[in-house]
């Protein structure tokens, strides 16, 4: 089965009893394994809300989301947390690393939550930090890293759990153009070489240009969806 995300009729309404705001309105979304997809649209179009719903961080008012064949909208909160841990990688706009941990510990932490063996954790940390080009920053704390480096650590952390897909909310928004380009190179390479599925929201034209599929949201609805292009992997 190559379908990773299958979202049907997703709607999210805020203040349904007073002044309803339709953040996401009847969205259907189908994501295959290995996609490198950008979710674009103006501010307030519902990109982040949709990502949060797909990632199980927020519940839809209506609709069903199947992740790898599992309906996450019916899960109990603790099961959902566990599901997120093992199936979904998150990259946030503000990096959101744990400031008191080193880069190595930030990446390893996710695997500790998964109760992986020490040897396996250490090996994966090395591999991921090498993949994001930060092998020499293993023992640096976030405050000692640039924004771009922190976001690369965040990507490594997102991949540490060997997720089904990675959700990235405006991953380049706080980066300069060079750092953004480096980050995109890394994400593209991981997508191409390791078949990791990426779904990211963005305003950044440079990111949009490198996506193989672009979904445009306007007022919570999908206004345009370019043809899905599977990875070359």
């Amino acid at each position, binding site marked *: 089965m190559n379908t990773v995300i299958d979202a049907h009729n997703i709607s999210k309404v805020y203040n349904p009893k007073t002044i309803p705001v339709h953040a996401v309105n009847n969205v259907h979304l189908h994501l295959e394994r290995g996609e490198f997809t950008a979710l674009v649209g103006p501010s307030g179009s519902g990109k982040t809300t949709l990502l*949060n719903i797909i*990632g199980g*961080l*927020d519940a839809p008012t209506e609709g069903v989301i199947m992740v790898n064949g599992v309906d996450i909208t019916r899960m109990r*909160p*603790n099961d959902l*947390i*566990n599901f*997120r*841990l*093992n199936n979904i990688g*998150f990259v*946030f706009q*503000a990096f*959101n690393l*744990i*400031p*008191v*941990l080193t880069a190595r*510990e930030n990446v*390893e*932490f*996710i695997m*500790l*939550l*998964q109760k992986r063996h020490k040897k396996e954790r250490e090996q994966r940390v090395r591999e991921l930090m090498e993949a994001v080009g930060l092998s020499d920053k293993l023992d640096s704390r976030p405050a000692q890293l640039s924004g771009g480096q922190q976001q690369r650590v965040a990507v490594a*952390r*997102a991949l540490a*759990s060997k997720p089904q897909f990675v959700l990235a909310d405006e991953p380049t928004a706080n980066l300069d153009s060079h750092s953004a380009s480096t980050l995109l190179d890394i994400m593209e390479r991981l997508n191409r070489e390791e078949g990791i599925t990426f779904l990211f929201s963005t305003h950044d034209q440079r990111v949009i240009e490198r996506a193989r599929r672009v979904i445009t949201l306007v007022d919570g609805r999908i206004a345009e969806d370019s043809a899905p292009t599977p990875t070359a992997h």
Partner: protein
Amino acid sequence: MLFIIAWRNLWRNRSRSLIIATSVALGMWAGTFIMAIYYGMGNDRLRIAIDNEVSHIQVHHPRFADDQEAKYSMSLDSMDALLRQQPDIKAFSLRSVSTGMVATTSGSQGIQVNGVDPAAEQATRGMAGFVTEGDYLDTDKRNRVLVSTKLADKLNLEIGNKIILTLLDTASNITSGAFRICGLYHTSNAPLDELNVFVRKADLDRLIGTAGRIHEAAILLQHDDALEAVYNWLKEKLPGLRIERWQDISPETALVISSMDTYSLIFIIIILLALSFGIINTMLMAVLERTREIGMLMAVGMDRLRVFSMVVWETMMLSIIGAPVGLFAAWATVAWLGKTGIDLGSLMGESLRDFGYAAITYPILPWHNVVQTTILVLITALIAAVFPAVKALRLKPVEAIRT
């Protein structure tokens, strides 16, 4: 890793954590030190009661305690012979006791006259050590009396003055005798001082007709632990007599000793309760400052139990790091003042003596209470952690990440 995160989080706001740790240390120091003073006073009271006042055990004729009449007496020789058999008895004093009046040119007062063997009384309650002026009773001269400084002040008495002791003899006839004051004494128990005068047993026996008889046997043991064994032995050997332990004779002292643990517990709980609010406030600030971070942790898959544990660990550490410092400071303070003593008498005047306490208190660190206090600190930390931890659990990742 949770432990490491909690520990490092603690030092993100170093001054805030240090302030809380310091207040915990100060609280622990104050609580433990006050406890040590209280235990020291309790121990002093116990030692004074046993070593200087009532001894470990007293034996009386069963009706003497109620009626105080001279006729209710016991055989001196048989009591002496019996008590010498028991190796756990360190010393004993066989007394004739009579209540009566002391009369002087300045006035009169009701008193208890204790007829004692000076050497035995010295061995049992260290009486000679309390003589502040004049001589103890170890003289060959007849009808000498030792009165307290308190009574002397009250009745305007001086060494060498004559006083008239009026008593009831064994036939319940009023009898009186003139006694000359040979010395003044001063113990740690002012109320008892005022009521008791001491004469040689032979002098009192002549007056009330109790030669070869005693009213009271005061028994000092080799060690406190032998109390129950000797008490039971005496009950077996002297079935018709009233045998009382120090707890029975001085119930107020027993109450002080038995309530020490309770008071200590209440005192420490009050201190910890006050500290817990500081800890809760600090941890609440720490959680609220890290809303986004906690939201991220929950988003990436940290379950509620782990979030709860992280906050609890952090709170426990915050509470616990100050505790050993406070306990060590308390130990050092007690070690020092345990040698030099604290002169509470200079602060509280005669009021301490009025309650039978020594003016100088030597604090004692009650180790079983230190263990109890340490456990209470842990429990306090755990309770203080609940509110911030629940606050953290209530965060919704999707909202927390946006802050």
